[in-house]
């Protein structure tokens, strides 16, 4: 299991980097599909089959299709570099590296040796997820709908020609 995990984890990270670094929007979108799919594999490896399937269907399927469609509709060209910030150019990447180093250091401190814990994976089937979602986490679930409503409203406000 472990090698598979590392392969897909690294793949996810690389693809995510590619999302950010690509200058052509469609490439970014395609890289995002790779990220989402590799995450789905990681879920699968952790025993969450249901989540993995949902991840592929909703994100990699529905949402990505929408993304690509929008990109094509807008006829988005290659992004022109607009970097005028000297601060970001000189400090951005080093700071990111330091930040990453700090996080790794913390992880290292916490998990000095690669101990694998074979804890019993909880049941993550549709029934269990559903029960969690509509019982223990019913409030977050409902409140998420407000969040989505706000997002829709915001999109309308910002994008609609005449309010």
């Amino acid at each position: 299991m472990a090698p598979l995990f590392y392969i897909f984890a690294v793949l996810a990270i690389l693809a995510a980097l590619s999302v950010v670094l690509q200058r052509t929007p469609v490439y970014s979108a395609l890289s995002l599909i790779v990220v989402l799919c590799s995450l789905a594999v990681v879920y699968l490896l952790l025993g969450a089959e249901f989540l993995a399937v949902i991840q592929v269907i909703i994100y990699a399927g529905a949402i990505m299709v929408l993304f690509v469609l929008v990109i094509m509709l807008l006829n988005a060209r290659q992004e022109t570099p607009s970097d005028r910030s000297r601060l970001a150019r000189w400090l951005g990447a080093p700071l990111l590296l330091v930040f990453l180093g700090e996080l790794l250091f913390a992880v290292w401190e916490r998990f000095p040796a690669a101990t694998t814990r074979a804890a019993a994976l909880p049941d993550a089937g549709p029934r269990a997820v559903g029960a969690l979602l509509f019982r223990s986490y019913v409030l977050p679930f409902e409140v998420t709908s407000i969040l989505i409503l706000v997002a829709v409203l915001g999109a309308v406000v910002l994008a609609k020609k005449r309010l």
Partner: protein
Amino acid sequence: MEVLLLLILLPPLAGAVLNGIFGRRFPQAVVSAVACTAPGLSLFFALLTAWTFAHLPTEPAPYVHSYFTWIEAGAFRADFALYYDRLTLVMTVAVTLVSFLIHLYSRGYMEQEGGYYRFFAYLNLFLFMMLTLVTAANYPLMFVGWEGVGLCSYLLIGFYFPRKSASDAGKKAFIVTRIGDVGFTLGVVLLFWTFGSVDFQYVFTRLEALPPGDLQGSLTAVGILLFLGAVGKSAQLPLYVWLPDAMEGPTPVSALIHAATMVTAGVYMVARSHALYAHAPLALEIVAVTGCVTAFFAATIALAQNDLKRLLAYSTISQLGYMFVGCGVGLFSAGNFHLMTHAFFKSLLFLAAGSVMHALSGELDLRKMGGLRHQMRTTWLTFLVATLAISGVPGLSGFFSKDAILAGAREGPLGDPRLYWLATVTAGLTAFYMFRALFMAFHGASRVQPALEPHVHESGGKMTRPLLVLAFFSVVAGYVSLPKALGGGEWFHHYLQPVFASSQALLSSTAAPAAGHAPSRLAVMGTSVLFAGAGFLLAYLGYVKFTGLPSRLTECFRGTYQLLVNKYYVDEVYDWLIVRPLRRGSEIFLWRIVDAGAIDGLLVNGSAQATASAGNLLRRMQSGNLRSYATWVLLGAVLWLGYILLR
């Protein structure tokens, strides 16, 4: 009684509110009616309260009434409470009386000026704050009044705000007194730490029960810190620099705030805290020495001033110094006596100066006056009375009060011959510069500019009548405390005795007896009169008899004269020592080090474009560039995280 006390305070507040809000729509007559009724009512109630107080069974014990709890936070508690004893009585009556007269005078003086309603609203507000200051029953409330009078003074100094010098002077007053206020605040905090209360009655009772020598250290510190506040407010060395500039304000303001009332708040505060200073002789000595040196120092500057109002301002500083000497040697009643008489004759001087200014279309230069006594008889007469009073000519109020201080400097619990001699010399200087001003303005040949000559006139009754009333008080106010040596009963001194008795007793018992034998009271009087006479004679010789003499003398002592004319260059020294380094420092720090140095210089272009102002750092940080902003956020996260990991 508690209602009466409030009634002293409220009329000016009501007047300020009325005039402040509706004044713009009122005709001038209504504005001035409202504005003058307020101090009139206050005076009436102050007298009524005095009468009621005198008939209280507990008199002379202080009367304290708490209206409501103002601040309560844990152990810290301050009420909106008023404190009334004989000292408060004297202060409220004097303050309301003088300010009533000055309000009346201002009706005429400000007639032609813009912002009539604004002026009176500020003036009323000032009176309210001043009364709050003198009636407060705890230090925080006193501080409210303290800050309030400062604010009003700041607003009124800058009243002619289109003049840059006026608004600068306002700013200067604000900043300089603030330095003192920091001391005051720290003093109150320290007091709270020492006693767990800031209430006058509680603290003073505790202090009276305290065995001498206890808590010496912290009480001395409190005393010095509080005195620092007084130094700022009462314009003593080294924080006196704002007062001469404050003369940019309208003259009635100079008379009321910067001569008669606000600047004496420091003296009042020291006197009010007498119980504290009684336990801190060292702090008291500092008070006395500062006062004495200031008195002398300011008097020497006044010698060479040609601007009438500035001359009076330095004279005020000098006289305030006297009051601190009075308090500092342990004779608080003497300090307050001089405070009261000074309020009358100094406001009279200022108002008379204002009358002159009015006649000469704002001219203040003594060299461009002369011979005015013919055209302006009343003004001349009243100015003369005030000059006689301030110079300490026997029979007038200033003589008695100054004499009480001089005698105190010699015989008082903390008296010292050096203080006495310096103060006596200062008395001579005072006589000289005051008569010099009198002679230059009113006597001799006219040096008024020809264009102005035909317009010179006596001011109207609105202005001269208050002058006459003040002149009356300047003459008689001294008789409330006629010294024993002259067959008097020192009534004022005895009246305040219950207030200060315990402190004076304590001071007399702890202080070492003054070295040498004290000269008799008559000798003290004689000496001071002698010095004053010498001052007068010199002025007479120099400015009436042999008018050429002063210029020849100044030729001879050019250096000294320049030093005096330029006020010992103190303003310049402050500018060099404090203002400029601060400005430079902030520029260098903000622009060079932080901005260009850290970000641009080291990392980007090796410190190239280094000529802009301090704003550049923030403009750089605030470049508007999203990526930069994100970098800052990341930088913050990295730094904090790094700290946590390295901890």
